[in-house]
């Protein structure tokens, strides 16, 4: 039985990085769905809202900012916590992350322990 509280959606265009996130999260007991596309992520999240979406900001097409904004604006998906992942530690990125409603912000390369810690924290499963 699928439990939305243990579901994570990984939105990342690099297949190897997706595989790494999936492997790390699944080992910790999370159920993982994945996509390389922002538009697909919005659709998947609306169909089966996850507890957390890990969103790479630099995905082509609908970028991570817009994907997050749409997730936070959707009636079915506004409760999804978003962990933004970016290659840049720029203040502008941090500001935008807050503006679009990201719940956490990670800089690449993402340490597996840090990914798990942030996903757990924003999902409210840390207790």
């Amino acid at each position, binding site marked *: 039985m699928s439990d939305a509280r243990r579901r994570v959606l990984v939105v990342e265009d690099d297949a*190897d990085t997706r595989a790494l996130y999936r*492997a790390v999260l699944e080992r910790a007991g999370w159920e993982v769905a994945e996509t390389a596309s922002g538009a697909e992520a919005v659709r998947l999240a609306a169909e089966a809202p996850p507890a957390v979406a890990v969103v790479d900001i630099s995905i082509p097409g609908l970028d991570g900012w817009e994907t997050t904004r749409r997730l936070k604006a959707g009636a079915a998906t506004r409760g999804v916590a978003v962990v933004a992942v970016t290659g840049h530690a720029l203040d502008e990125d941090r500001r935008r992350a807050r503006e679009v409603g990201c719940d956490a912000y990670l800089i690449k390369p993402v340490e597996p322990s840090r990914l798990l810690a942030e996903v757990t924290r924003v999902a409210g499963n840390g207790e």
Partner: protein
Amino acid sequence: MREELRLLVVAEPALADRVAGVLAESDGGRRFDCARVDGVGEAVERLARAEADAVLLALPGRGEGVMPLVELRAGAPEVPVVVLAAADDEPLAVKAVQLGATDYLVVEQLYGTLLARCVQHAVERERVRARLQRYQEEWPPSLRPAADGEGRVAPLRTALPASFAELVEDYGRMLDEAVEQVLYRVRRPTDESIRELARRIGELRAGPRDVVEVHSAAIKAREQEAGPQRMRLYSAEGQVRLLELMGHLVTFYRRLGSPAHRPRESA
């Protein structure tokens, strides 16, 4: 700490034998106890039993890509991994580093000192990083590195930009000297300078992420003018200096005890 470094080699038997031979012939530094395993699954099991200090992972080349590294990172994320790749698979090795491998070596350029040094640095770097992380976790929440920009300390780069720029400049000068030392075989008093730099960084209550940002900014500043060969030297020597810097910083914090609040930048 034990003198012998336990290295788990994930490679086919012929390559693993070559690695063991090359390490046995390397002079100076630590001795290596090499154990070979056939696959990542077995490696993860042994690492779960703390049977190795580091992994040397031969990437199998086209087809499997970096999946063995992915499995290893997911199963044993804290263990430093050095990747071995064929010369024409170097882009794969670079990708492996982006996914968290500590370093990579090209099989065709495998020789004792380089291999031994690379593995030792990987282990030391991970050990120092973990120690610094532990120090930081004991700090008040307001001083911990920012993950989400909310309620935690800002990076040194943005909190104290002038101090950050000075550190980048001085650290960069140290890298210049280190590269000159290799190129022209001149000796310079870098050890004392790096200890002094660590003291200055410590007084700003900086953490491992700040140190890495200083290092990265100094390296990046040299990319414009240095050619590829010189940049390789900057990269190699930079790793050594980064490690030394983190080591001195750990010593500084240990002597200091519990860190106080980050000071304000003077105008």
